[in-house]
């Protein structure tokens, strides 16, 4: 099955990011695919003020993304509202809702993660 992961709460407020990481690892281990991980709304905040658990989860997701070839995207509009700028070195790139909407055509199922 091809999954898309949609994270809508930051790791500052909850365990959404950690849950997404664990879900991705479990799904990939069972032979499923991840097509895209999208950080929306407050989830972008967790990328600038990561808690220790979030740093571990982000590193874990980044490793999975590199190994399995799926993008980690943070909503550009949300990031701009939070004063974030693109970092070419970061594992999570800025992207648009359009990229999520486009990738949705290829996904069998989406899973949302909130606090």
């Amino acid at each position, binding site marked *: 099955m091809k999954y898309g992961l949609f994270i809508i709460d930051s790791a500052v407020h909850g365990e959404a990011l950690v849950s997404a990481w664990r879900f991705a690892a479990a799904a990939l281990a069972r032979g499923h695919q991840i097509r895209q991980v999208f950080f929306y709304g*407050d989830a972008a905040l967790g990328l600038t003020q990561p808690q220790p658990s979030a740093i571990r989860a982000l590193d874990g997701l980044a490793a999975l993304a590199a190994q399995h070839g799926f993008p980690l995207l943070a909503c550009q509009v949300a990031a701009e509202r939070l004063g974030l700028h693109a970092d070419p070195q970061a594992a999570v790139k800025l992207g648009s809702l359009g990229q999520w909407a486009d990738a949705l055509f290829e996904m069998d199922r989406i899973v*949302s993660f909130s606090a």
Partner: protein
Amino acid sequence: MKPVLVMFASAPWRGGRTRDGLELALALLAFDHPLGVLFVEDGVQLLVPGQNPGPSGLAEVVRGLHALPHHGAAAMVASAACLRRRGITDTGLPVARLETAALGQFIKGFGHVHCC
């Protein structure tokens, strides 16, 4: 193409969740995804007419929700039970009210569900 449901479950005063949901719905419509909208839990508070918009830009978001059918949203539905529980009788948006049993069937008609 799988139809997508955007579910508003958060109260208008809970940060930018509603605005995020609206922008997501508009993006999905721009990519021609068949779209439905569902208001449940505290999300039905968005349907209360004549709310004080306050500083959060709520009025703009509510205007955007009103415009969704014009942009192509095929269904606008609210949980009748959630409305009743909160004493909401009039809604500022033209939504169909479904009882809980019918809501399950309605949601089953969508291939993807986003909760905001």
